[in-house]
């Protein structure tokens, strides 16, 4: 399991949070309990299984919702 911190462009509407949460939680390999969307910090923190999913796939899921990903940081969880 790895821990990812994904930096996004500034989030402005609270419904963005719900959307991003929905998009990331529906991915298999992402620990649903761990998903935290930080509205004010414009960050997503989550834990994922690197054997099932790549951080690039998670980024794609977020960008396809229309939110730009600035960068991601992956560390051992």
């Amino acid at each position, binding site marked *: 399991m790895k821990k990812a911190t994904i930096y996004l462009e*500034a989030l*402005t*509407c*609270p*419904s963005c949070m*719900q*959307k991003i949460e*929905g*998009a990331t939680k*529906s991915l298999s390999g992402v620990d649903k309990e761990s998903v*935290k969307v*930080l*509205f*004010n*910090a414009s*960050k997503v923190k989550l834990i994922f299984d690197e054997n099932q999913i790549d951080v690039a796939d998670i980024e794609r899921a977020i*960008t*396809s*919702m*229309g939110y730009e990903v600035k960068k991601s*940081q992956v*560390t051992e969880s």
Partner: protein
Amino acid sequence: MQRFILSKRNHIAAVSAVLIIIGFASELIFSYHPVALWALAIASVLGVFPIAIQAYQALKVKVISIDVLVTIAVIGAFLLQNFEESAIVTFLFLFGAYLEQRTLHRTRSAIRELTEMAPDRALKKMGNGSFEEVAIESVSVGDLLLVKTGAKVPVDGKVVYGSGYVNEASITGEAVPVGKQGKSPIFAGTIVENGTLTMIAERVGEDTTFGKIIELVEEAQDAKSEAERFIDSFSKYYTPAVLVFAALVWVFSQDVELAITMLVLGCPGALVIGVPVSHVAGIGNGARLGVLLKGSEVIHDFSKVDTMIFDKTGTLTMGKPVVSDVQVYTKNQEVLGYLASVEIESDHPLAQAIVTYLGKQQAYAVEHTQVVPGKGIAATVAGHRVVIGNRSLIHQEKILLPLQIQEDMDRYEQQGDSLVLTAVDGEVAILMGIRDQLRPGVKNDLLMLKRLGVKHMILLSGDHQGTVDHVGRELGLTETHGHMLPQDKADYIRKLQKQNRIVAFVGDGVNDSPSIALAQVGIAMGGGTDVAIETSDVVLMQSDFGRLPHALGLAQATARNMRQNIGIAVGVVLVLLFSLFFSDWMSMSVGMLVHEASILVVILNGMRLLRYRVREI
């Protein structure tokens, strides 16, 4: 394509503004209907695109967002050929989003300033022995890094080579540069003012002291209170409910226009954003002024505190004993040298205070040193027997205390002094009163707390009752209790909580952490230990007691601001719905205008908190 349209949102808003002006102008001035119609129709189609895309994305993950309501309403108005309404509503929605983005940016500025202080590059020693600039992420524990004059220390670690002066204001708040050489610990985010250091990385990324401060602040601004969680789940059901309600209105009244107007009026805009905005502005203000409030639950509790309990040493006082009263009963100047020579060998805090007070003295050979635990020390200096200690050591040594000395001792003790007597060859030569000094300005700070509504101010300390009482009298505290162990302090807090008091505890050490955790609001002095900082709810970042009144005032102002914003948001929806049914001036675009205006009002109201300062006495 979708992303292209979304990224051009603001341009679309501008274009549709122009089209709307053309439309209305041609209608008013030339009463030329077809142009007006076309301009407004194009503006509607253009404007609804980005909104509809967002609505579609939301629906894909089963979220009924505000975009969904607005899209349905606009499409409805368009089909009814009410192009004025559809054009103005889409424009206002897009323009509102733009203004929200701009103002939110301002609200978040305080915390952004903090995170931007984090270093992002480092000079790392590569395999070939040269130093190369790399991104901070590629620095790992054990790497050797070079930090030059003017650069930020990239990670936490130790100096291995070189020396210099480092400004540690970002960590300690102390702007005086600190000298660093071999083995000195240095911290990420601090700045090397002169000299060049080679360091070894020990903690990187979020593990560094600075990274932890940032993480605490970030988690705090997004940690939700009970009220916010309620609003969140409320809006999760509220928006679909508006949709259902509008559908019912349509079915029963057969009035499509009324139904789609309902959709716009029911938007929960200001309600969803009002509370987080006060919250982030309040926490941002604190972060900039050295007060870390951990989340909105904390703000809520802190604003209602009526009882504050203080630890003494290190909190109300400096935590460093200083010689404050001296009486010499002999003409023999050598005695001071004897005293200094004995005390310089001891690491007891009182001995160190005496050494600091005496300064440089004639040094004598000290023999047969004998430490009497809890009482003092005895030794032979230059052939004289020197006894240094408290009252009970003097009694034990059967040394006589003349009446005048006894009176001096009583007086010193009433002032809160710890006594140190020095006797040479069976006669008392010097009496010293040693006292921990109050932090400067602490009395004024307590007065300000009192004015902010703290009714009970209590001092709990492990120290002697006499010393504690003295501090209490001097500061005008309501209650003082000495001889308290950490366990006793915790029990005392429980007792007060049973009387329904809202208790805040202010302390600094590991020994205070049970009380900090137990009190409704635990306040840690930031220079203190990691344990105290992590278990606490509020951190006075620069260990500065003077921040406490600001912290309390800020919490109260933020709580007030949140209530105002909830009031504004709920009031707006109620007024809108009321006027929809009971007046005839309400329409979709007026509703949208009022909504967007109310969103800006709550954001601007929240921003006032960025400038909040507690009123000085």
